[in-house]
């Protein structure tokens, strides 16, 4: 018989009481009121009872002694247990812990998935932290700007990190509103010789590569590099003075304190007195200083280096500081007039711009002394990947937790019956999530610590793992957000169980709604994983394409060595050449400005065929002797190589230049004249070579002009036999040092150097591989957990199917069918998204792979296969179980 519903007192009155009184007191008071209410209902009927109820409830409206009011929990002389007790917390903790141990495999899966996600996020954070910390230690960093060169040509925009050398001094004079201006010139001869003071031992030789600079004293006023010795105000005032960094000074003189006053010889020509020592430049700076000489040193010397307005050398940087009240826009507006005033008319379109210091590490167009920029897009991409991985892990957690919900239903039912409030249960389940997340966090710290050295090596940066405030803040942020995101839904579901239904074990039927959410989450996981996979495949294929594309010239077994280019050394070139050719291990020798693929080089416009106007585009100039063509196996499509000579008598051009000049047949250009720099270099074209990639495959092939110009050669290229390489190399080194005793010998293999061009992309491709693997791993972990659960839940169904005659195969098919469908849906969503992003990325490269459907198919199929493998074991196990066991229990 249906029980008549007992009349209830007005709910709002109860709310009023809870609002007015402390938690404890309101419980007692409302209890009293309810008790009285049932009496009143019997005596006076429902309506009157309700009015009495309100009457008594409103009695608490008047002022009350403080202890009864809301917000107070301590009742005086209270001998009973407090409402919220620490005992409860420990109890919950104990139960959560026991729960974890009981469903041990589920806990492990959850913690593993979460910790991998958190660790990836943490590592990405460390990398981004490092890359965004470059040169942030300068006090004036927000007001420092670099004057860069940027202008338009029909070929596109041209960028240079440098400005003509006189710019700094001129701007100091012309722009009095500048707070400061200082120049630094890099890329000068890195050879440093320490003459031995006692005269007995040989001098020490060092090659500092690109780390030798000339700088104004103002440079050190603008940038905050710490000085260990010497006076920053005066150390670089005089010509032929210089400072060393501590590590350099220690290498040269043992103890850096003894360095001041000593002399070094730079580039075998300049005697420099050491006037100070700098502290080592931190790793996160784009000024890798080792030796800094005063720019005044350049005032003497040849060629009016400091007054040349025509040339722009990328290594000649000009930095200014603006006072707080001057905006960069105001200076930028005045720059075009500045350009017109000082630059020769032919170059008046080469405009200047102010680039803020904070962009220098990130802007690939201009670069920096480290030769490496970190694109801001990459930072965004990495952030997204990190967040995605974390999302996948959280999704895992949610899926597994709700799947396990059925197991906890009885516990929740009992708790509710014993008086637990919804809020208490929420707290309990959030607490359990927090416990799991915390364990995952600890494990993630361990994983990150182990992985960090590998990551550092991979990215060629130095990452340190210190638990400083930023990292801790980040970790606690991750902890809180992961707990909230992962814990919210399961906690709500679990605490919402109707105790009656739960205790009757009928909960399973109620979680119908949970299944569609679970499906959506699986789709989300695999969607993200597949996007990463497709991205990875595209990047890897593109990198392989770069590596394997024929560059148009031979790069195997070629050694490139720098040779000194002072006039004395040049006389020894021929002798050295003969020496080397005598060695059987050596096939060809060539002297040139650079190897075919060295990115740097000369470029210039020119007058073609007696025309009075110069071309409005620039050709790349490569200077080399005639042996160059044979050594690098450059193919001729018309004409012949030029004859050997010391200066330019004949030119050879490439196909692109021919086309740019408007000729359809390369033959037609033979005999025509090219005029560089108003008659300084004039010669006819005698040959056309097939295009080769002079720049990285990112950029199109430039129009190229080649000629002989012994004055500027400083590279010696040697083609060696593949056999007995070490012997040959030793011979080369010996011959070289004999010829150039005052210099430092250094060689590199051409194919290695070329592989280095794509270092950042190669690093990225490795990273993407790792991330894709992690994403699939976590997703499959989740899938595995889900399937484990579902096989348990549906074991009765499986048993009945088997009894009715289903084969093992059909049962496995039953389970895998659902997931395959979900993965397919994920693929349908992932493919267009991945296509869009990859298309954009590939557009960066002039020479790129087509975005073929095979890549997408590969990604989709492999994720399905991996999922089957993950799921297969469990599914098969479920399919083989004896139906007797599953149907027996009721």
């Amino acid at each position: 018989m249906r029980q008549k519903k007992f009349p209830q007192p007005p709910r709002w009155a109860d709310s009023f009481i809870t609002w007015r009184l402390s938690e404890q007191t309101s419980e007692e008071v409302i209890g009293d009121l309810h008790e009285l209410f049932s009496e009143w209902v019997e005596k006076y009927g429902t309506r009157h009872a309700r009015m009495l109820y309100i009457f008594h409830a409103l009695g608490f409206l008047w002022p009350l002694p403080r202890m009864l009011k809301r917000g107070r929990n301590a009742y005086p002389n209270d001998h009973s247990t407090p409402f919220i007790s620490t005992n409860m917390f420990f109890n919950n903790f104990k139960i959560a812990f026991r729960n974890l141990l009981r469903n041990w495999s589920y806990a492990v899966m959850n913690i593993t998935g979460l910790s991998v996600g958190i660790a990836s996020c943490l590592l990405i954070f460390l990398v981004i932290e490092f890359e965004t910390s470059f040169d942030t230690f300068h006090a004036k960093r927000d007001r420092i700007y670099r004057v860069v060169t940027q202008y338009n040509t029909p070929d596109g925009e041209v960028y240079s990190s440098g400005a003509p050398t006189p710019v700094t001094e001129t701007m100091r004079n012309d722009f009095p509103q500048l707070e400061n201006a200082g120049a630094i010139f890099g890329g000068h001869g890195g050879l440093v010789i320490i003459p031995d003071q006692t005269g007995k031992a040989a001098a020490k030789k060092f090659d500092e590569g690109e780390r030798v600079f000339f700088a104004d004293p103002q440079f050190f006023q603008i940038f905050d590099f710490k000085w260990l010795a010497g006076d920053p105000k005066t150390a670089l005032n005089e010509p032929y003075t210089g400072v060393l960094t501590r590590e350099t000074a220690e290498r040269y003189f043992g103890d850096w304190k003894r360095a001041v006053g000593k002399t070094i010889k730079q580039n075998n020509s300049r005697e420099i007195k050491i006037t100070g020592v700098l502290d080592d430049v931190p790793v996160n700076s784009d000024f890798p200083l080792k030796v800094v000489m005063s720019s005044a040193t350049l005032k003497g010397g040849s060629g009016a280096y400091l007054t040349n307005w025509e040339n722009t050398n990328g290594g000649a940087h000009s930095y200014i500081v603006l006072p707080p009240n001057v905006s960069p826009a105001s200076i930028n507006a005045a720059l075009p007039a500045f350009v017109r005033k000082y630059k020769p008319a032919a170059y008046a379109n080469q405009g200047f711009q102010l680039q803020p210091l904070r962009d220098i590490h990130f802007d690939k167009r201009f670069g920096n002394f480290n030769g490496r920029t970190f694109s801001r897009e990459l930072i965004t991409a990495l952030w997204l990947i990190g967040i995605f991985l974390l999302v996948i892990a959280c999704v895992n957690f949610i899926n597994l937790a709700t799947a396990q919900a059925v197991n906890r239903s009885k516990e929740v039912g009992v708790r509710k019956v014993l008086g637990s409030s919804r809020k208490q249960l929420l707290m309990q389940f959030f607490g359990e999530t927090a416990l799991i997340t915390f364990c995952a966090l600890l494990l993630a710290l361990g994983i990150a610590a182990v992985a960090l050295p590998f990551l550092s090596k991979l990215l060629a940066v130095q990452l340190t793992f210190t638990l400083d405030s930023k990292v801790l803040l980040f970790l606690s942020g991750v902890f809180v957000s992961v707990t909230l995101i992962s814990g919210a839904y399961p906690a709500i579901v679990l605490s919402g169980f109707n105790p009656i239904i739960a205790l009757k074990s009928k909960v399973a039927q109620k979680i119908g709604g949970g299944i569609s959410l679970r499906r959506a989450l699986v789709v989300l996981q695999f969607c993200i994983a597949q996007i990463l996979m497709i991205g990875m495949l595209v990047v890897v294929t593109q990198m392989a394409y770069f590596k394997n594309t024929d560059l148009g010239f031979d790069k195997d077994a070629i050694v490139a060595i720098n040779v000194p280019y002072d006039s004395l050394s040049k006389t020894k070139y021929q002798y050295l050449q003969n020496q080397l050719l005598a060695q059987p291990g050596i096939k060809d020798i060539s002297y040139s400005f650079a190897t075919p693929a060295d990115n740097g080089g000369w470029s210039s416009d020119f007058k073609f065929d007696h025309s009075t106007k110069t071309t409005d585009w620039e050709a790349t100039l490569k200077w080399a002797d005639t042996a160059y063509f044979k050594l690098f196996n450059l193919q001729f499509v018309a004409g012949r190589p030029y004859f050997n000579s010391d200066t330019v008598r004949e030119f050879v051009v490439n196909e692109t230049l021919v086309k740019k000049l408007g000729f359809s047949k390369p033959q037609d250009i033979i005999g025509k004249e090219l005029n560089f720099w108003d008659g300084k270099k004039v010669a006819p074209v005698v040959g056309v070579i097939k295009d080769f990639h002079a720049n990285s495959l990112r950029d199109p092939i430039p129009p190229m002009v080649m000629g002989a110009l012994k004055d500027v050669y400083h590279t010696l290229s040697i083609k060696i036999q593949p056999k007995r390489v070490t012997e040959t190399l030793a011979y080369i080194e010996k011959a070289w040092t004999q010829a150039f005793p005052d210099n430092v010998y250094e060689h590199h293999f051409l194919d290695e150097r070329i592989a280095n061009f794509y270092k950042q992309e190669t690093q990225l491709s490795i990273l993407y591989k790792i991330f894709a693997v992690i994403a699939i791993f976590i997703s499959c972990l989740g899938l595995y957990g889900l399937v484990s659960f579902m096989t348990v839940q549906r074991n009765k169904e499986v048993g009945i199917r088997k009894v009715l005659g289903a084969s093992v195969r059909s049962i496995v098919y039953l389970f895998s069918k659902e997931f395959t469908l979900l993965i397919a849906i994920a693929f349908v969503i992932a493919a267009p998204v991945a296509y869009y992003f990859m298309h954009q990325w590939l557009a960066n490269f002039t020479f790129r792979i087509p975005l073929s459907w095979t890549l997408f198919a590969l990604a989709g199929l492999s994720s399905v296969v991996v999922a089957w493998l993950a799921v297969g074991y469990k599914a098969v196990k479920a399919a083989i179980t004896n139906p007797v066991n599953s149907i027996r229990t009721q």
Partner: protein
Amino acid sequence: MGEFEELVLLTVAIMNAEGYGATILHEIETRTKRSIQLSAVHVALYRLEEKGLVRSNVGGATKERGGRRKRLFTITPSGIRILKEIRNLREQLWNLIPKPI
């Protein structure tokens, strides 16, 4: 101590450690035939406890209370002493009234 507080204190003593808000209210209403508000009772009990004349502890929950616990009050020795003092004072004063009344 006010008259109402004394009344409440006496009732607590009467109920012999089984008294709580609702029952005390009920007793007072039955015996004095006055309509008292529950809040008055609770406040009085609280003040008595502050003065140390009663002691409380939280006790059982029942279905009528919707599962909420109740706070049971017991009189303390000092509470008994005060009641005795009041009664003695009253008796003394009564004895001083001349015989014919």
